[in-house]
């Protein structure tokens, strides 16, 4: 059915689905790294989370008596993948499923579906989980050290046991297999009066490991390299523009560098910040979520700077070791305001004083 017949009568051929698919493609490197590091456990987490999201989408649409065709736009699948990648490998299965339901049900459909959600659905779910289950959400398995933790995650049955019965089902002591994330470790150390440098040393922190993904962290957050590849793909495909990633990362780097120069023992160095925690994932995949970020280029720069400031502040002074996700959500609230005041210059008009 043709519903309107206004010009133009040709189209670029772009669609919501192609936008979403390109983000899914961009997440593939991170997903592969997670499978490499966490073996079957990653496969189980990712597939169950995606299934939960798709099922919730389908059920809510059915229940509301709407067409179920939005399933095909791949946005629910993307949410599932994205959420899974923010979860620790040892998340209990029911929490993963719950996360998927939260993401689609509370994060998206209650607002009226795709396009109306003020926050990225995966991000809202992750935050709900983090606040509700702080312990499970910050229990990190020692990555890729089968020798260290004594776990062979490439063993399907072991992964299945871990996924279904949780960590308690294992013979070894929990402590032997888990460790704090670098951000968490430094924060704890700091509260005990240990300086940043010393903390990093005792942690055996290595920039290289953090870059390629061998420090503790959530499934898809460990490898800055994989995320960076995905981000570059998105920029090249023109799914996102450089404004948010650039301003977000630059702000964190500048703040960290300044503080670090002033007091190196108190504040961690900028590179540590850039590689740590969920920053890369947040920068390229959550802050740039089109629905919840500003539309105009200037607005996006402002948004990115805001995210950067809040991230660094929470990491440095806040109660949580990681602040990137909270930063994005806080800035999401300001989006309508940013959009209103950061409109581009209109042809032939003198720029309005806002």
């Amino acid at each position: 059915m043709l519903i309107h017949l206004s010009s133009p009568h040709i189209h670029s051929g772009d669609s919501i689905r192609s936008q979403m698919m390109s983000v899914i493609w961009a997440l593939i490197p991170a997903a592969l790294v997670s499978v490499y590091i966490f073996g079957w456990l990653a496969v189980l987490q990712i597939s169950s989370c995606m299934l939960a999201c798709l099922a919730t989408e389908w059920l809510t649409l059915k229940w509301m008596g709407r067409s179920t065709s939005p399933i095909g736009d791949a946005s629910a699948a993307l949410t599932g993948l994205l959420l899974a990648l923010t979860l620790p490998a040892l998340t209990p299965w029911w929490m993963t499923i719950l996360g998927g339901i939260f993401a689609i049900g509370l994060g998206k459909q209650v607002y009226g579906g795709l396009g109306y959600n003020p926050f990225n659905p995966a991000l809202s779910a992750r935050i709900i989980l983090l606040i509700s289950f702080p312990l499970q959400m910050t229990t990190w398995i020692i990555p890729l050290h089968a020798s260290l933790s004594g776990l062979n995650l490439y063993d399907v049955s072991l992964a299945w046991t871990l996924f279904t019965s949780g960590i308690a089902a294992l013979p070894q002591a929990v402590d032997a297999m888990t460790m704090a994330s670098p951000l968490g470790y430094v924060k704890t150390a700091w509260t005990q009066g240990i300086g940043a440098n010393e903390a990093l040393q005792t942690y055996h922190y290595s920039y290289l490991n953090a870059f390629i993904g061998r420090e503790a962290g959530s499934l898809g957050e460990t490898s800055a390299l994989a995320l960076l590849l995905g981000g570059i793909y998105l920029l090249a495909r023109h799914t996102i523009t450089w404004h948010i990633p650039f301003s977000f990362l630059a702000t964190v780097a500048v703040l960290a560098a300044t503080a670090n120069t002033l007091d190196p023992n108190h504040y961690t160095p900028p590179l540590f910040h850039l590689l740590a925690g969920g920053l890369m994932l947040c920068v390229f995949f959550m802050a740039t979520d089109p629905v919840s970020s500003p539309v105009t280029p200037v607005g996006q720069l402002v948004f990115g700077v805001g995210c950067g400031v809040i991230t660094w502040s929470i990491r440095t002074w806040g109660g949580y070791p990681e602040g990137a996700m909270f930063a994005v959500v806080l800035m999401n609230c300001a989006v309508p305001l940013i959009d209103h005041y950061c409109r581009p210059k209109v042809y032939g008009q003198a720029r309005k004083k806002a």
Partner: protein
Amino acid sequence: MIKHFFKKLGFSSAPFAGGIQPDMQKWTESSAIEICPLPPLLIVPMKQHIGQACSSLVKVGDHVLRGQKIAKAEGYVSVPVHAPTSGKVIKIEEHAIPHPSGMGLASIFIEPDGLDERDTSLQPITDWQNMDVGALRERVRVCGIAGLGGAAFPTFIKLVQDQRNPIETVILNGIECEPFLTNDHRLMVEHSQEILHGMKIIMHMVGAKQGIIAIEDNKADAIQSMQDTVDDANIEGLNIHVRVLPTRYPQGSEKQLIEVIIGKQVPAGKLPMHVGVICQNIGTTKAIYEAVVLGYPLTERVMTVSGDAVPNKGNLLVRLGTSMRFIYAQRGLENFEGLQILHGGPMMGERLRHPDIPVIKSSTGLLALSQDFFKQAHAVEEPCIRCGHCSEACPIGLTPNLLADHCRNEQLEKAADYHLFDCIECGACSYVCPSHIPLVHYFRFGKGQAAQVRREQNFAEASRQRSESRDTRIQREKDEKAAKRKKVRATHAPTPTEAEQGKE
């Protein structure tokens, strides 16, 4: 600021903001212009330009000659209409014109006699260099020339010399950035001499020192042809140059082209002449040449006939008033079942309900698209995902998704604050929207609503004034009467009887 910085570093790939690079589909770019035969009937609408409609000068049964004025201009913003060929006026009545609403307009129906005899009352002017500019302007007006690029604004109005706004530069718009269309392209290849001649006349008329012929880099043969002609002409010491620009839609839009060429924007509410520029379309320039040098009024134009449903695509020289159905038939298309037909290019052209509509001065192209082709652009609208692609594509610097929200909700004041009235309806935003939101459709709706509100306000204002003046008139009359009575009393020292008489 950052953009400015990049510009300084020489990174400026897009001299105007936004823009898109659609698939140009210029399938007819190497088809030479062919002459479309005379149809058995010509239907000439009495308004083919922006402005006021003409009034008929002929009656049924009259015999007319080609180029004879058959309808005269009414008001300033208007140009006369001429008979496209010789023949007999068989009726004068309303007929559909190219308009999406399918609306009709009084039209003169002419049955050609096949002789195609010309009215020779207008003398050729060969020494226009020595002619009074006003007389040349009058010639352009009586020849019925209106912008052939699609807007059809009466051309003579732009051709003025104004002391306060001297014209420095004449820009010849050879951009033709609409996909499919190749009529200007072919004119530049085949008629570069006439075009250049027309340009010299324009420069003479407005007193411009410099002329620039702007052509996009996807028309190599047109660039070559114009360059060769200009090289020959520049021997005479003229300052005319060909400027090759990267292909980008909507570069052919007047405001964008001016910005690209002179690096200045036309301020809001001003005209190109306020920045010392006028733009002319290629076809119009050739028409000016014919009007002045040959003494031919505008009776024909070149148009592109294309689209995936047209078997024999091409560029045709068509008499104004020729039925579109006749033209399609000439190109092998007779069955319109399941097809969509467009008047103009695919980005800004309008969809027509049927092909029984005559060609007019603004007809740049005639497209026929299969339903499959057409559907791609008109898929079902999905929610806005706020991707910002529309803002990026907008050459004016608008935020189309936010603006569309305001239009949809009929928040007209907000829409105006978001510069609804600066939108040029170029369609770049709708073209890129992944959610297939018909943004331009909403902008038209918003503009229509605003016009409606304005009309109502004007009406209310006018009746308020009317009733106000009625009240004051009544009051005045009352006062006058009372004053008279006083006077009468005072001078006559009235007796009670007189006073009683005065009452009557």
